[in-house]
């Protein structure tokens, strides 16, 4: 069946849960592009036949193949664009440095897009008034209190707090730290907010 491979690409993303990025299906994409090439070449020769040989009975087939080509293009672009949206969400979730596991799921071009996006976002944030700008990837939730109790999940090392004192973040140690300093570390999974 024509366009079956393209539909599979779309289904693959449809099945993936919100925010998940499955590995880039290079094979699938290649097969869709090959199918498109084959359809186009068949159409080219048929168009020539129809024009020179007067075979107007070929026209419905030509139209059908053109529709398949359009469908393939649409499915492919939908697949690529949806992945971009997921990758964009990763910047907001994990910060500028992505965990290795996720990086392996991205193609080289997607990595390029991600780097450009990071830079564009950083430029924008820096321009927001004042000298350093405003990091709008912080403060994702309304603040409930100034300080929060956190437990350290992994060894992180020295961590400097506002008034100059530094805290040693060892696995399983608990600390009472300013909320806004911890936010990013909580998102990266290094600290855990203790709600007791």
């Amino acid at each position, binding site marked *: 069946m024509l366009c079956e491979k393209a539909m599979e690409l779309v289904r693959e993303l449809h099945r993936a849960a919100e925010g998940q990025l499955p590995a880039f299906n290079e094979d699938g*994409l290649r097969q869709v*592009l090959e199918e*498109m*090439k084959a359809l*186009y070449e068949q159409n080219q020769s048929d168009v020539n036949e129809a024009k020179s040989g007067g075979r107007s009975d070929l026209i419905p087939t030509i139209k059908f193949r053109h529709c398949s*080509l*359009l469908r393939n*293009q649409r499915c*492919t*672009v939908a697949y*690529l*664009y949806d992945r*971009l949206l997921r990758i*964009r969400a990763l910047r907001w979730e994990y910060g500028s440095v992505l965990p290795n596991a996720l990086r392996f799921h991205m*193609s080289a*071009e*997607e990595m*390029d*897009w991600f780097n*450009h*996006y990071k830079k*564009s*976002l950083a*430029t*924008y944030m820096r*321009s*927001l*008034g*004042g000298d350093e700008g*405003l990091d*709008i990837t*912080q*403060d*994702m*939730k*309304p*603040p409930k*209190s*100034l300080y929060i109790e956190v437990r350290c999940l992994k060894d992180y090392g020295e961590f400097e707090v506002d*008034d100059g004192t530094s805290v040693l973040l060892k696995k399983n140690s608990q600390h009472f730290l300013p*909320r*806004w300093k911890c936010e990013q570390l909580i998102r990266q999974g290094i600290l855990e907010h203790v709600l007791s």
Partner: protein
Amino acid sequence: MTEELDLLGQDSDGGSEEVVLTPAELIDRLEQAWMNEKFAPELLENKSEIVECVMEQLDHMEGNLRRAKKGDLKVSIHQMEMERIRFVLSSYLRCRLMKIEKFFPHILEKERTRPEGEPSSLSPEEFAFAQGYMMNTETYLKNAALKHMPPNLQKVDLLRAVPKPDLDSYVFLRVKERQENILVEPETDEQRDYIVDLDEGSQHLIRYRAIAPLVASGAVQLI
């Protein structure tokens, strides 16, 4: 934000209107802009004067707090206030950025065809960001797949491919200034259009399209 500690003695400039706002009024305006932006389906006019003034205010507060006596209870309260304001400001800017990314072809097209004299819905920095985003995405699609496709299929019309904001979605609003003769268009063929008057202080659930200009003028507040 009380004045008792005398940490906030500065009046902010309201920008192009040359109105001087107290800090409390400024934060009020920020919250109104934030709520409108959150509930409106399309990108609203940019309020960069408010953003700038709030940033200035935050810097000012931070400077004062650094000089204040440590361990004072009022310091914590003001720090909390600063965090709350920072949250509202960040949320407002995030909301705008998300809408820019979601509707980028339409926003850029609107900007391109904007008549002289009409204010832009984008700040210059947002415009640069939107352009960068468009170029980045177009280049990516070209390199990842489009350039490998047959010659007549190497372009994608993003204006048709990316959905437009749904201006017919319903919004809750509170009326700030009395409005008369608002035309409400029919949803289905059986209904006919009718006219409503909006009384001050009343609250309504209505399609965004009918009251979009009122949001821009400040006559209603989305809630």
